[in-house]
């Protein structure tokens, strides 16, 4: 028997080396399955190494001007909670922050400022609009509508009220009223705002090509630096997609995103377009680094799962944990996304269908119809798709994915 350095020997002798290889593969596989889905130290309390260890980075430093303004207003409210001017200024500030960061804590802070009037049937008009915005963000659409109706009565000249009212009515599938609400806008706002409002309603009610054409024309007349341009482009992209022109929809989404890279809604819209056409790598590229937003994380997980990327497992796990956390606190804000997660990633069609049905009770946007149709088909329960089929028939909605599924499901019934 010859004597070798044991380590060197292991690498040099072919038989031992192949054994080592086998064990490496087996060991790796075992630890892969055994430890899959665990992340470093999450959920376990720990004692930091030293006083200088940074344990948390706050989204806004205390010295930040907006943070100081918020603090000042909060102090003012502590002295007099019913100071309407300070309360609405703080609520507006927090709602803006909620929009720009997509961090829902700010909506809670906004609500706190409005608490003295939160349950009032007739709060001050300035409070009404803000309360409606917060209710809408909580997916309390009927509640938001009550406030917006009241606000429209006392502030008929407020364009924001009519626009928001049109959006809420559309989500509730009350399209005639939504169009009427848009109809007030020409007297109050720019022609582009009116065109966007109309396109949002007409795009869903079977007139997507005309709506897209009208909105395009309105856009041409607007200067490049107009602040409503990115929003108008994003709506136009969506309506163009519903009209079936996917290449143009992609171009428009990218243009909107170039003007406003932090717009999660447009980013999600573009990601869906890429995922639906099998361009998962491009979708991942678009979404990477934006995992803070649950909707974008979900799409990243889907794109990576399709592409078979190993990073997908971490994102899938993370998305699952966020849905679980939301469910734990009793939130029902993510029904559409969660249904998609269950359907596309977990392949649990029954669970997806139950989520999609509950979501349909709350909101009737095209994406809500789509997930209900998809889940019903996957669960082999075409009858469960009836409400979405009825909606598609009544509206004449032309979105290609919905139309295809509706045909298939109508045929199988």
């Amino acid at each position, binding site marked *: 028997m010859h*004597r070798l*350095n*044991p*380590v060197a020997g*292991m690498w040099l*002798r072919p038989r*031992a080396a192949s*054994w*080592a290889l*086998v*064990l*490496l593969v087996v*060991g790796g596989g075992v*630890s892969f399955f055994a*430890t*899959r889905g665990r*992340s*470093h*130290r999450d*959920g*376990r*309390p*720990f*004692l*930091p190494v*030293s*006083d*200088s*260890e*940074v*344990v*948390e*980075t*706050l*989204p806004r*430093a*205390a*010295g930040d001007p907006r943070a100081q303004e918020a603090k000042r207003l909060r102090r003012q409210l502590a002295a007099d909670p019913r100071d309407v001017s300070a309360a609405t200024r703080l609520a507006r500030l927090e709602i803006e922050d909620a929009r720009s*960061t*997509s961090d829902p*804590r700010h*909506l*809670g802070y906004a*609500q*706190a400022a409005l608490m003295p009037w*939160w349950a009032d049937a007739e709060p001050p008009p300035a409070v009404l609009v803000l309360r409606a915005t917060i209710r809408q963000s909580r997916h309390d659409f009927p509640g938001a509508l009550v406030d917006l109706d009241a606000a429209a009565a006392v502030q008929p000249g407020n364009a924001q009220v009519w626009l928001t009212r049109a959006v809420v009515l559309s989500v509730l599938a009350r399209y005639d009223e939504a169009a009427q609400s848009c109809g007030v806008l020409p007297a109050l706002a720019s022609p582009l705002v009116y065109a966007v409002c109309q396109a949002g309603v007409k795009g869903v009610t079977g007139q997507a090509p005309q709506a897209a054409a009208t909105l395009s024309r309105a856009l041409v007349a607007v200067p490049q630096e107009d602040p409503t341009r990115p929003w108008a482009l994003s709506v136009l992209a969506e309506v163009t997609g519903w009209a079936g022109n996917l290449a143009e929809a992609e171009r428009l989404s990218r243009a909107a995103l170039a003007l406003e890279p932090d717009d999660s809604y447009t980013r999600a819209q573009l990601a869906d377009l890429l995922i639906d056409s099998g361009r998962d790598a491009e979708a991942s590229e678009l979404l990477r680094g*934006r*995992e*803070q937003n649950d909707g974008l*994380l979900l799409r990243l997980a889907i794109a990576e799962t399709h592409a078979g990327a*190993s990073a997908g*497992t*971490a994102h899938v796990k993370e998305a699952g*944990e*966020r849905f679980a*956390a939301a469910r*734990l*606190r*009793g*939130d029902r804000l993510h029904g559409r996304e969660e249904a998609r997660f269950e359907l596309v990633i977990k392949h649990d069609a029954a669970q997806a269908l139950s989520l999609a049905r509950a979501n349909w009770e709350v909101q009737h946007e095209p994406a809500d119809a789509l997930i209900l149709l998809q889940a019903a088909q996957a669960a082999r329960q075409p009858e469960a798709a009836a409400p979405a089929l009825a909606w598609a028939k009544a509206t004449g909605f032309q979105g290609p994915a919905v139309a295809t599924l509706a045909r298939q499901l109508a045929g199988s019934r």
Partner: protein
Amino acid sequence: MNARWRQLTCLAAFLAVWGGAGRLARAHKPSDSYLTMSRRGVDVAVRWDIAVRDLEVAVGVDANGDGSVTWGELRHAIPATRAYAAGHLALSTSGRACPSSFDEGERVVSHSDGAYLSLSLVFHCPGDPDTLAVDYTLLFELDPQHRGIARLNDGTGRVLIFDAGRRRLDLTWSGADRSGQLAAAVRSGVHHIWTGYDHLLFLLALLLPAVLRRKPDGVWAGVDDLRTAGADIARVVTAFTVAHSITLSLAALGFVALPSRLVESLIAASVLVAAVNNLVPLLRKDRWVAAFALGLLHGFGFSATLDDAGLTGTALLKTLFGFNVGVELGQMTMVVLFIPIAYALRNRALYRRGILRGGSTVIAAVSLVWLIERACNVTVFGWLSR
């Protein structure tokens, strides 16, 4: 020097370049606090995790206003945090309040949206807290969308959710718990050893050579009889057990507190040493000495699990005992499975080359990844991390 730079230099120190390192951006979610409530006789122990972000709004923790909250800043805010927290959680039984006190030893814990301060408090009820009224009002005046999410540690896994409209909830403990507390601790111990891969791999690395002996020329050969192997295994396992029981008790009773990353890094290093020792003799002493010395580290690791289960604080001797028994039972199961197989194969080249060397190499590789991850606070392979 900022944290990112420190991570990079730390990685460079390992001379390792891995792809795919990095952590996810934190979630954006509404504000929640997490409570774990355990019953201990007439006492109710509560572990309470409150987000650092929420504490900044409620009591102010970022003393220098630079947007980074250090452990030092957070520690200084603990008295204010305790005062704030104590005023917003009340327990009572049959209308009589349960006075509360805080246990020392606040920790930091990571949830999906960031770092939380983990408080530990005990409510001393005047009578049997079979049924409790819980009043929770934390943060509601600052954020009406805040929720308090309380998990009952009584084997039922029930969850109570407090929100601005539901600030008082009544609870009745599950009857199974009162007799089952010890059993739960034993189960927790077994569970921990079987899912605590670092402890398991450490033990395995020490046991792999137990059916062999190193001849004077350094070559391994099978032992002659089962008794030799059995005695060796008994020495190693006993030494490991005694060592980690000592440090687990010291840590759980609050006599010693070591930084978690240090403990976890050292545990990873101990697995690495034990595995490499099978390839190249590093430790001159008998292996039971190594099992004892390195086993001391593992006890500190076990104590983190007790923290996690909200089982720290006063009157936890029974839990500690049960947990230790569970760990030993889990360990013995592995030994009983291991001995016959190893003994039967000991004279085969397969065992010496494949299982001893190959297995030790795998263990060494895994523990090296853990060491890098824990020391540098990064994730190298998500699926390998624990």
